[in-house]
């Protein structure tokens, strides 16, 4: 076995770890947008990932290069600097663009189906499987009755009492 082959698994693990540690998407935040206060900037980054860019609709404003996304990133930072809570910033945007601007749907009665629908379907499926197996077990027979034994023997041409 060559030493090269021995190295491979560790390299693979290193690549995997690096890959998992890397951010999921590269940020589009430009240096001139970044706030001096690291805490506020951190909140801005977290919030930006929850806000949909309305130009390239399945991207967050954190990763989008669109002009509108840039202006929204600056707006989020301005509002945070002015003392808004995270929720107030999101409410500000929802008031203008509706729930659609949120990448994570809110927990409102209208969205319950969205949040709990898949879990409810899974539970219903599990309940169905459990019911099915229970019913099958209860109707299973322990063995053949004497009458059935006799009938089987007759059908395969052997008389159990003959021998």
């Amino acid at each position: 076995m060559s030493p090269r082959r021995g190295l491979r698994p560790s390299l693979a693990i290193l690549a995997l770890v690096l890959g998992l540690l890397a951010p999921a998407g590269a940020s589009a935040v430009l240096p001139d947008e970044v706030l001096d206060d690291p805490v506020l900037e951190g909140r801005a980054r977290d919030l930006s990932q929850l806000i949909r860019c309305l130009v390239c609709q399945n991207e967050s404003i954190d990763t989008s290069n669109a002009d509108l996304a840039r202006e929204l990133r600056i707006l989020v930072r301005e509002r945070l600097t002015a003392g808004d809570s995270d929720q107030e910033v999101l409410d500000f945007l929802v008031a203008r663009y509706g729930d659609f601007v949120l990448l994570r749907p809110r927990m409102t009665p209208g969205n319950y189906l969205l949040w709990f629908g898949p879990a409810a379907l899974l539970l219903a499926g599990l309940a169905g499987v459990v019911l099915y197996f229970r019913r099958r077990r209860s109707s299973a027979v322990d063995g053949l009755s004497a009458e059935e034994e006799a009938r089987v023997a007759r059908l395969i041409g052997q008389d159990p009492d003959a021998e």
Partner: protein
Amino acid sequence: MPRRALYLLPLLLFAVIAGYFLWGLASDRNPNLVPSALIDKPAPAFDLPPLEGLDRPGLATADLQNGEVALVNFFASWCLPCRAEHPLLMDLAESGGVRVLGIAYRDKPEDARRWLGQYGNPYERVGVDDRGRTSIDFGVSGVPETFVIDRGGRIRYQHIGPLMASDIEDKIVPLIESLSE
């Protein structure tokens, strides 16, 4: 009988889901349409400067609250669909049935001015929104977008994308007529 009805449940579920998918595939559905959050709400507060060198005043919230129905159109010289809807706005302005107001979205003043010089200016007033902040307050996600504002300054309709002749005939004009009564 109830037991047998239970067997129809998966079929029923399938029908519901398939129906939903069919609706999603419907050719007249535009998945890019963002449902408007500002319908029946007062137009946002704004005060935009005029376009330099154009003989029209700027645009502010007060201009939407003077008891007349208004059409507010967001446009830009760099926007090709705006060019497509432009003749319809010219016609609408000429018809005199509604005040046509413009907001120049993220445009250079000289470009916007040249554009209006070349294709005609349907706008009674033009406000310049150079950073797009007023557009954000209107919930605009791109140009062109068109709003119908009632006499009290409330947003009654938001049209996303270029206006077609059919939009004007079927939606805009009837709405303006009913709001003007």
